[in-house]
């Protein structure tokens, strides 16, 4: 079973994403900001991180940059999942090392499709 780390400061989004991911047979762990997400990466070695952009403490982009400096057995795939839906944000995320990008709002088909594209579903 693959593990997905959901990083979002919205409890509602985490709950919706968790429900979808569990129906896709993922084990799910959660974090409410980028710093907590780094801790969860060390604790659970997720296969994929579903990452919000705007969060308190540490943003998604700050997390993505910090992830590169972490020593982990395997770098997880990173899928941004955000309301920042403009091309400039998408380009910035991909150039910073994100593997895929989900524009909110999303549904089950979108999430499943993106997870297939990065090779974890």
């Amino acid at each position: 079973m693959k593990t997905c780390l959901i990083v979002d400061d919205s409890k509602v989004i985490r709950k919706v994403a968790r429900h979808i991911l569990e129906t896709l047979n993922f084990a799910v762990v959660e974090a409410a900001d980028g710093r907590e997400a780094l801790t969860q990466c060390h604790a659970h070695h997720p296969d994929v991180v579903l990452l919000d952009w705007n969060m308190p403490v540490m943003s998604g982009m700050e997390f993505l940059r910090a992830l590169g400096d972490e020593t982990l057995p395997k770098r997880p795939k990173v899928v941004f999942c955000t309301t920042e839906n403009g091309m400039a944000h998408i380009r910035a995320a991909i150039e910073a090392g994100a593997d895929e990008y989900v524009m909110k709002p999303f549904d089950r088909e979108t999430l499943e499709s993106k997870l297939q594209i990065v090779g974890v579903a």
Partner: protein
Amino acid sequence: MTALARVQPPSAGATMVLSALLEARTGQQLAASRSWRLETAIAPLLSELALPHADALVARLLDGHDHRIGDRIVDALLNHETSFFRDAGVIESAVEAVRAQGATARPRVWCAACATGQEPLSLAMLFAEDGGVMPDILATDVSASAMARARAGSYSQFEIQRGLPIRRMMRWFEADGSNWVANKTLLASVTYRRHNLAVDAGPGRFDLILCRNVLFYLTPPVRQAVLERLAQALKPAGLLLLGAGETVIGQSEQLRPSTTHRGFYERVDTEVTPHAQRG
């Protein structure tokens, strides 16, 4: 988004008339097991026309005053389900098969029943990215509204995210409000034309034909006739690709599984190559 009011289920009579209309226009059969779809499919049209139920829609159809109503009902009943890179491995193998044919002339590809056009654009992206000769890609569908949408190349946020990797979206699409529109280069690589598989002759001869996930909606006699026309539309060494679970076996005298490309079909008079004989 407007919430659709719950309408009463279609009566048996209305179901029969609407199913008969769909079959007469497209050869597609609304099987009893899928009759539930009729209610969902016509709900937006009923709402748009401010009609209370399917029987009123049938009355509008039969009174003969609205000449477009038949087309609109058929459009509503057709299944436009598609996505970018649907069965991605299959789409990639289709491009590889065309390249392997090594045609010196510009290859010709036909995406039959392409709905809103994600399949031909997926092919066009792959062909353009591999740097070989760009084929002529013809995309057809029986639905006028689906063809209009395909021709516009404009997709909602949900549609653009189904199957399309973000890097390809960045390269080939531009934002247009909340939609994403194929850029001019990509859109110009596909020709769109309305075409009814059930009655129209094939629109030329092709190196590759994709006709995926439509045959199983057709009645057996129409399906056989469509397969014969698809066979006639293949060049001598051309390849036909059907949907998963669809086959020509037992349904066509003119087609057989390809001797060189697994998962494809070819005309029975295709010459077997020495390579294929070595198998």
